[in-house]
């Protein structure tokens, strides 16, 4: 008897939950569009072999970060990486970060580091 009452109560509870159809505009999460705020480095000048921290600030829905550099090496992954300057190319080295959200919207930014 008690068991039946319990089951009945659960059934009534579930029936009373309201579901709402939420419209998500095609191309992004309606509440969290992709915004790439900034790409910054803690050092804008390096000697070969030195390391700088590079931070990407972005908001959006399920973001992924892709990194590349014209010279040197990106160490790590995600929104914050280390950049190791190589001795192979002095001058302005450009680091590029591309942020992509779940809907495949993407945005890129660059930051320069001078290597001598």
């Amino acid at each position, binding site marked *: 008897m008690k068991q039946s009452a319990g089951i009945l109560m659960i059934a009534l509870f579930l029936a009373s939950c309201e579901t709402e159809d939420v419209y998500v505009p095609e191309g992004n999460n309606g509440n969290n569009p992709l915004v790439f705020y900034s790409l910054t480095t803690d050092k804008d000048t390096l000697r*070969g*072999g030195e*390391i700088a921290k590079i931070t990407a600030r972005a908001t959006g829905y399920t973001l*992924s*970060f*892709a*990194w*590349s*550099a014209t*010279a*040197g*090496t*990106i*160490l*790590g*992954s*995600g929104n914050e*990486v*280390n950049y*190791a300057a*190589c*001795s*192979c*190319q*002095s*001058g302005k080295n450009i680091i590029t970060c591309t942020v992509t959200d779940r809907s495949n919207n993407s945005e890129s930014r660059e930051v320069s580091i001078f290597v001598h």
Partner: protein
Amino acid sequence: MFIRYIFIFLLAATVFTDHTIAQCFSSANPVGGSDNLLVLDKRSLRLITFYRYNYGNQFYEGNERSDFDLIRSANYNYIGTLIGYGLFNKLTMEADLGYFINKTYTYNLDPPYPLSGSGFSSSVLSVKYGLIKNNEKRFFISSSLGAKIPFSTKPVTRDGVELPVELQPSIGAFGLVFQIFMVKEKSLTGSRYFLTSRLDVNSENKQEYKLGASLFSSIYYSKHLMFPWLKGDWTIILQIRDEIRQKDRKTTGWIESTGSNILYFSPQLNLFIKEKLNVSLMVDVPVYKYLNGTQLATKYGISLNLSRDFRL
């Protein structure tokens, strides 16, 4: 007997040609070693499989040790296959394919940070022609021309990060390979002398990066070991090899810390099993290095080769 010794040399030559990571320890001209010495008989198939390990942990500036220590150590493991087919008695077709199991740099951070790439290196398809074949004087010359074909023109990435050039399995560019081989045999003493030269020229890849041209030249001395106490069919091969690499280039200009001249001493021991299978072990030791700028140098390399001929 002679063909077998050419075979042994083939093993020696195959692996020396650079699987080193560019420009010294990086991916410069990761050639597949298409050094199938001389031409094969018509309808003969030659199959070679090899493994190579390379290690380095010291930077050089010019010919002196550097205190630059961004990278603690570097190594790679590479496996490759070379297939040769005798189309006619003076013409052989060759295909050279390989795969980097890993190319790893360990960066000197706290804690140490390893970064690895892997993948197929460029293949080389070539045609070899027998220029001179003097059986009486036991003197032979052949030459080959080949095309270097990248497996992919897209750089390899790991966790969203594009790997540096040095850790790419292939530079992703096309190129040409020209080789010449000379062999002189002294049958009475069971010894042979070989002289080879290989020129690689590369095009620019999609990232506008162009590997410098390279010229590898080698002198070999091969001696069949004929001691009464020695069981099996053993040969020792001593190689001195000079590798000259031009600097790499981008549209912005020459890339510093690329380009080098390195002299190697590479002893090799070969065992011919049941007149069918060749097993060979080779060690690469650089005896002189001159590296432009600051570069990570190879400390040593080890190769193991298996090869066999088939008559079709």
